[in-house]
């Protein structure tokens, strides 16, 4: 009888050790980011790369989200703790004689919903009624126009925002 008990206890131990910690798999659709593309102001259907573009948060910390590079699209996270996120879009042109820094500020506002995913990932945020507040400073601004393509940010399949320059 003892052997049989020992056997059952062994099996029971195996059952327990079969359970493991749940981790949120990387391919799960969690909180989406905002996809931004840069198009030509003269011909708004054409993609046009921005030279020397860097993007940082418009707050005291000034965290760098996009390091300086030449690119025609960026992925920007939105703050899941509030209803707005402010960014500084910085275009830096370095010539042999001079460094010209041109900064445009855009404030994004939105409604946020927290949607349950599963036990490992918890909740994801979904953003709706996206609005971009940007003040043109005429020829001072390198950005010419800001267009919202999709005002709901629930996936990352297509661009949500187009910036003409």
């Amino acid at each position, binding site marked *: *009888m003892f052997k*049989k*008990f020992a*056997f*059952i*206890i062994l*099996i*029971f131990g*195996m*059952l*327990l050790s*079969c*359970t*493991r910690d*749940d981790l*949120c798999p*990387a391919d799960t659709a*969690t*909180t989406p*980011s905002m996809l931004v593309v840069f198009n030509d102001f003269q011909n708004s259907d054409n993609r046009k790369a921005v030279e020397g573009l860097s993007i940082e*948060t418009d707050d005291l910390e000034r*965290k760098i*989200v996009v390091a300086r590079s030449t690119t025609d699209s960026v992925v920007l*996270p*939105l*703050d*899941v*703790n509030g209803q707005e*996120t402010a960014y500084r879009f910085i275009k830096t042109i370095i010539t042999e004689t001079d460094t010209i820094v041109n900064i445009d500020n855009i404030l994004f506002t939105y409604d946020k919903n*927290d*949607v*349950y*995913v*599963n*036990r*490992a*990932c*918890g*909740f*994801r*945020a979904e953003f709706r009624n996206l609005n971009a507040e940007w003040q043109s400073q005429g020829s001072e601004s390198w950005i010419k126009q800001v267009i919202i393509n999709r005002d709901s940010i629930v996936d990352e399949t297509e661009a949500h925002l187009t910036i003409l320059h």
Partner: protein
Amino acid sequence: MKRKPILLFCISLLFSFGISAQNKETAQDSLAKIDRYGLRVGIDLAKPIRSFLEDGYTGFEIVGDFRVTKNFYAAAELGNESKDWTEPYVSSKTSGSYAKIGFDFNAYENWTGMNNAINLGLRYGFSTFKQELLSYRVYTSNPIFPSEIVYDPQTFSGLTAHWAELIVGVKAEIAKNLFLSLNAQLKLNLSEDMPENFGNLYIPGFNRTYDYSKFGVGYGYTVSYMIPIFKKNRSAAATEEE
């Protein structure tokens, strides 16, 4: 998902073990055997012990079975559980009651006068419970805006769940009519009410749930007492069966 095949392997091992134990001892003696029939009632000791040792858990379960034929027992369990569950991104509390009904098959051929068992059982389980979402954090993979913990408690009551359960266990008669039993349970979730915009991290009687699996596991350590009702002569029953 390695867990499922491993579990199935464990269960099939137990099955073969039970069957071989049954084949080994074919009764050849001509002594009259008396089988005792009665109602066995008891409690699951594991749950009060766990309630005492583990923070955020309280549970109680009464068990009962009634011998119907030589090897089959009608069985039922009734219980109540409350469990706090904390994941990295979610914290919840579940409480409720459950009932399980089904039968046990005794695969162990006892010697004269002995009354032990190796049980294979099936159950239908039903639970009504309340799920509370205590706090959560939004999952975000970007380090720019780390999410803060949201304390917005919500209660979802009147939820139900149904499951099927396979039980394997051993039972030993440690004193006349007094039994100790150890069992392991494999559960298959048949249906559950989902709280709106939340999930069931724990279901009383079913135990914890898994994201990508309908299976659950459990165990019990019960002490029970058999109230004898009548006795039956084995030789008459045995010739009937053979």
